[in-house]
């Protein structure tokens, strides 16, 4: 057999290669960023002044475009005064990786500039609280309603056209209204997340429930299941793993609504932190905060995926290594009864 190829149409890769590519997916952007940051002649469009010479308006640390700086040097030389010196630098909005890496730590340890402003961890807690309540309220109504719509055509016809209509209204458009109704603190922000998530949620959940194999419903009916049991004992358990995955994806959407929700009323949470830091031109902190959102999102998703795989064993056609070992041992210890097929198809 020939060696497995990296690019074969629709062929699975070995686990090693999969993991390798997963790592490279993160390393590649980092590498690009490092090259742009640390190799001067790639970009570095500015000059950072080290020593202003006798140019009166320059200060150390000031950044100016390379062409302007060269002009100043030429003017100074022509006038016979000491020219300024400087080094090539990237714009302030593109800090190098190490600065952002440091900021990931220092952002938590640095007190806010203004007294009364929140520390980073407090801002994050605020954001998580907003997401938590928004997603909880949305799910508490959206999931049952979605299940009803998936189970009963009349429920679906009654609610889905309207839900579909509202879905097209951007959630932030309700910002001013929510502030008027709910005040300027946590409540309107939670409301924006609810509005942004809920309507999608109803449709997605309804669709997932509708995908349940109709044969299961019929089988349950011939076994005596009535309406209530068909919903609670068949549709619900049959769609649970997919519902779980839907909620995982919708939680990601809730995060995108967070950023607009947090500028509604009194700006708060991680968005407030980001805006504040941008105002102080501490872009390393801005990047750090954005990265932290990414980390939280990725981590929650991975944890939820891990939990889901263990929660819904019946959906997982590939038994875990431990499970395989147990069943293999069992098969060896307990010889099958004569009437039994001893080899279930893999």
């Amino acid at each position, binding site marked *: 057999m020939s060696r497995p190829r990296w690019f074969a149409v629709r062929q699975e890769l070995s686990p090693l290669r999969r993991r390798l590519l997963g790592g490279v997916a993160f390393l590649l952007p980092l590498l690009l960023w490092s090259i742009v940051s640390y190799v001067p002649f790639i970009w570095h469009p500015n000059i950072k002044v080290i020593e202003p010479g006798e140019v009166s308006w320059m200060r150390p640390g000031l950044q100016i475009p390379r062409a302007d700086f060269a002009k100043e040097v030429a003017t100074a030389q022509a006038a016979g005064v000491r020219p300024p010196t400087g080094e090539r630098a990237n714009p302030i909005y593109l800090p190098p990786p190490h600065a952002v890496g440091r900021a990931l730590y220092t952002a938590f340890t640095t007190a806010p500039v203004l007294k009364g402003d929140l520390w980073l961890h407090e801002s994050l807690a605020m954001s998580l609280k907003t997401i938590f309540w928004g997603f909880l309220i949305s799910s508490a109504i959206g999931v049952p309603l979605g299940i009803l719509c998936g189970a009963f055509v009349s429920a679906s016809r009654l609610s889905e056209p309207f839900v579909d209509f509202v879905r097209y209204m951007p959630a932030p458009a309700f910002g001013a209204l929510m502030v008027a109704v709910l005040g300027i603190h946590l409540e309107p922000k939670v409301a924006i997340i609810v509005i942004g998530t809920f309507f999608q949620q109803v449709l997605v959940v309804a669709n997932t429930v509708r995908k349940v*194999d109709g*044969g*299961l419903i*019929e*089988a*349950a*009916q*011939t*076994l*005596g*299941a*009535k309406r209530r*049991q068909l919903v609670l*004992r*068949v549709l619900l*358990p*049959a769609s*649970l793993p997919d519902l779980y995955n839907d909620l995982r994806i919708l939680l990601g959407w809730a995060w995108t609504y967070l950023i607009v929700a947090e500028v509604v009323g009194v700006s708060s949470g991680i968005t407030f932190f980001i805006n504040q830091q941008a105002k102080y031109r501490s872009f390393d902190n801005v990047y750090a905060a954005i990265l932290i959102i990414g980390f939280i999102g990725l981590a929650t998703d991975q944890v939820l995926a891990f939990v889901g795989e263990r929660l*819904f*064993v*019946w*959906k997982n*056609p590939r*038994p875990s290594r431990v499970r395989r070992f147990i069943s293999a041992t069992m098969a060896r210890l*307990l010889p*099958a*009864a004569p*009437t*039994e*097929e001893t*080899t*279930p*198809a893999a």
Partner: protein
Amino acid sequence: MSTPDPLPEYLRQSPAVAARFAKLKERPVVMEIDRLSRQFPGEHGPVTALRDISLKIHRRELVCVIGPSGCGKSTLIRIIAGLDEPTSGRMLVDGKETSGPSPERGMVFQGYTLFPWRTVKQNVLFGLEMAGRASSEAEADARQWIDLVGLRNFADNYPHQLSGGMKQRVAIARALAPNPRVLLMDEPFGALDAQTRAQMQSHLLEIWRNVDVTILFITHDLDEAILLADRIIVLKANPGEIQEVIEVSVPRPRSLEQLQSPEFQATRRRLDELIHPKLHAPAEHLPITRLTQVGDDVE
């Protein structure tokens, strides 16, 4: 090769078989289908899928329904199960008219339809739970049904861990657990490979011998119908009507060896004529031209 014995008349029954049928007909009628018709709306007016189907099935009888594709076999069994409504006619079980699905008419589907989130035992328990049976007593019951279909060691496995044949056994145990009066089987072995199918057929006969249940079995496999059935209902298509009812003269207990017996062959030939009349007419000439160059002529 010696010339084969001429086949007996397919309806001729040996005294033992005739006695058996006489006894069978004395048993009470479990299910009665009375002038059942079903029309579907079509592009050019309604299409009649079933017309005036009338049928009486006695207690512990095994009846097979067979017919060409599109003859409405599946529609018939779905109506009997209560999963579809007839346009006219009625259905009685133990003399009472039925409406909608009920556990008194258990069903085994071709596509298994096991609940994938439930283990084998939990699948078998489903019908008992729906009937509100106490759990410890129900569990003992479920265990018995699982033993009957020979899956004791797989009681705690999930359906995705089972082979097709095993899945269908679970489906049979699940349908039998609530003690149905009639077990409806809609081409239950159609998706299985030939060897497993043969195993399942003997297995079904074995189960039927040990359980007080009346079976209505839909199939398109002629051998399967003869092997299993007391009576075979032959349907014809467009519209779906009963063409002939055959009392199978093959003696019981049945086994695969009987496939070669004269009674079996005679019945088989009759079914073949009824279901595939085209095959027995002279072949029509198809204008096939030779598309590829062949080196030597094999005809």
